[in-house]
């Protein structure tokens, strides 16, 4: 397959693996966090961990939008879905995630709620046009990658003056989450795992550009390499991070030059700024409250905001007590350190954030890496 096969070439991978092994120093370790769930998935799906020397450890970050959405927000979506006038639509990954009491959108759908799986924000708008007698709510989630399409359909709905379309906005922002991870106490304490450098997101960076990473690279003295999602992209980026660390450089480098520029996609950024504004604070599953880390719909598009159209009462929802997701997302613990992993918490019965989607650290490890512990 053109544009895919050349980034999955076995011989090139072996070459990169050799270079990584040669250049990784023996007197130090390299703790590298891939922020993005897409990278976590690629790393495990293509078996990258056993192509890396023991001194290089990948830490799986919180960049899985489905995983970090708090249970309380999902419960609100479930409430919306059970209103008889509502058709709720969302992306496929979101449907399986359990809310309070193990209830999920898939279960609600099987019980008769009108829930549609969609592949694009545009499909949500089409649904509203096709069902003028129903209230169509788009349960919008995701990082900066999926945000511009949501902004676009809100503007289109405004132009069409669609009375039956709203968005339940749960879009979150990458840079505040990375800054929060570095400011977390664990990152500074002795005897805990420090994060030496970051593999920066691929698709998110196409939108926001490489510039937003420059400030925290400087402030927290951590190198960043923005990496594509193909396995050879990931391996080359790991090599670039190792070189920066070996040479004492703290730079934002761009491996994914075929798609990412320093400024990013200005048009998409403008679109987002027109429709959305930062929320003062947003709760992240596994990480807690992070200021200015999520978006809400601006006043001028209030008519399309599900949180304004429908009465919503956020109820307190608690995470399972033994769950180590927070520590796993910060790189302090590994999935196998958690007592719940592969006992009470499995992909069929996920308890914590990292197990709910295939991009979550625990789910990816369970699905692709578990055999290594047993060996």
């Amino acid at each position, binding site marked *: *397959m053109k544009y*895919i096969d050349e980034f*999955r*070439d*076995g011989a090139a*991978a*072996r070459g990169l*693996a050799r270079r990584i092994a040669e250049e990784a120093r023996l007197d130090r370790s390299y703790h590298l966090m891939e922020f993005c769930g*897409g990278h976590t*998935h690629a790393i*495990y*799906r*293509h*078996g*990258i*961990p*056993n*192509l890396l020397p023991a001194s290089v450890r990948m830490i799986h970050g919180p960049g899985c*939008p*489905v995983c970090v959405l708090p249970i309380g927000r999902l419960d609100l979506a479930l409430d919306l879905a059970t209103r008889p006038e509502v058709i709720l639509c969302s*992306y*496929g*990954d*979101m*449907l*399986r995630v359990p809310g309070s009491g193990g209830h999920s959108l*898939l279960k609600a759908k099987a019980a008769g709620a009108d829930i*549609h*799986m*969609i*592949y694009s924000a545009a*499909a949500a708008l089409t649904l509203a046009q096709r069902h003028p007698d129903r209230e169509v709510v788009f349960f919008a*989630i*995701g*990082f900066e*990658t*999926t945000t511009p399409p949501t902004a676009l359909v809100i503007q289109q709905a405004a132009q069409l003056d669609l009375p039956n379309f709203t968005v339940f906005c749960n879009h979150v922002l990458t840079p505040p989450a990375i800054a929060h991870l570095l400011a977390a106490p664990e990152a500074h304490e002795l005897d805990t795992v420090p994060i030496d450098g970051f593999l920066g997101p691929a*698709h998110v960076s196409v939108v926001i550009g490489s510039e937003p990473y420059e400030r925290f690279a400087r402030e927290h003295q951590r190198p960043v390499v923005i990496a594509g999602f193909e*396995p*050879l992209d990931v391996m080359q980026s790991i090599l670039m991070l190792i070189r920066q660390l070996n040479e004492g450089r703290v730079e934002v480098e761009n491996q994914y030059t075929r798609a990412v520029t320093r400024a990013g996609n200005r048009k998409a950024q403008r679109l987002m700024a027109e429709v959305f504004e930062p929320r003062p604070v947003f709760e992240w599953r596994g990480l807690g409250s992070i200021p200015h880390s999520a978006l809400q719909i601006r006043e001028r598009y209030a008519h399309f905001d599900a949180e304004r159209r429908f009465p919503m009462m956020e109820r307190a929802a608690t995470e399972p007590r033994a769950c180590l997701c927070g520590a796993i997302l910060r790189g302090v613990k590994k999935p196998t350190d958690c007592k719940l992993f592969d006992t009470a918490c*499995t*992909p*069929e019965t996920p308890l914590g954030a990292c197990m709910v*989607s*295939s*991009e979550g650290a625990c*789910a990816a490890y*369970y*699905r*692709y*890496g*578990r*055999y*290594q512990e*047993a060996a």
Partner: protein
Amino acid sequence: MNAPRVRRPFAGRLDLEHGQVELSHGSGGRAMAQLIEDLFAAAFRNPWLDQRNDQACLELPPGRIAMTTDSYVVSPLFFPGGDIGSLAVHGTVNDLAMAGAWPLHLSAGFILEAGFPLADLKRIVESMAQAARTAGVSIVTGDTKVVECGKGDGVFINTTGIGVIPEDIQLSGDRARPGDCILLSGTLGDHGVAVMSQRAGLEFETTLKSDSAALHDLVAAMIAAAPGLRCLRDPTRGGLAATLNELATQSSVGMHIREVAIPIRAEVAAACELLGLDPLYVANEGKLVAVCPPEDADRVLAAMRAHPLGAAAALIGTVREDPHWFVTMETLLGGNRLVDWLSGEQLPRIC
């Protein structure tokens, strides 16, 4: 063949062009008798069905009898390369064939939704009859029920099949042994992607067709080449990953496959890439996985490749000793990963 000697108790013919399924078509009265007579019996004709009894009385050749049942609820009902009717024949024939059985007879149970166009039902029934003729099996007994509009999805079909296993054939999922070879009869994921390409909200253009086909003739050729064949299974729902995990668990062994050896069409790989699916988990309806002793592998592979349904057959891996019964894969990159059971439904990833 004798013509049916049944006096027709109904005056007109079914309107198979513009008519719809009605509740009365399942209520045991005249309307049901007419539907059976004009549609099912006309399409499936054979000596057993022509007797018009509530059961078929069969005389079977010597050998062990294999029996299996499967229900078909595919959506959409018509897809490139097949429909629910041909699928209901192929699926059940293949489940028999995987035991080395020669399939002989099928039953067909239909659950129809009131309001379903009779023209579509006719298409499905005729396709089913055609698939049965091609596979050399007869549909010897059946049943029709009608549910209210909104309580079904057009048509559900259940088929039960019986076949006869020739003497000396011992195929079973628990017979894989460390050192054995794992063979795959052709490209992965054709059926699943062909069906998905037609699904509402997901339509994409592809020339891809479902691989839906009856495999018993291919199986017979493989058994003739190597009677020592150990296990056969068709990787339907859950795909190759589910099939290998089933066999590994049944046989208490591990399995190791090589990604580079697995045949996948470029269109399927592209569609999976686009939709965030893994072809190892996508359904097939005309492929089989075979496990055989290493010394038989070349002969089985040659027999498969000589058959039109096994032309792209490949040796994809080996059976290993493993107390955890894991299925693992060497990736294209040269790394290793687990090939786990599918969790939940395979849903597209969002970014």
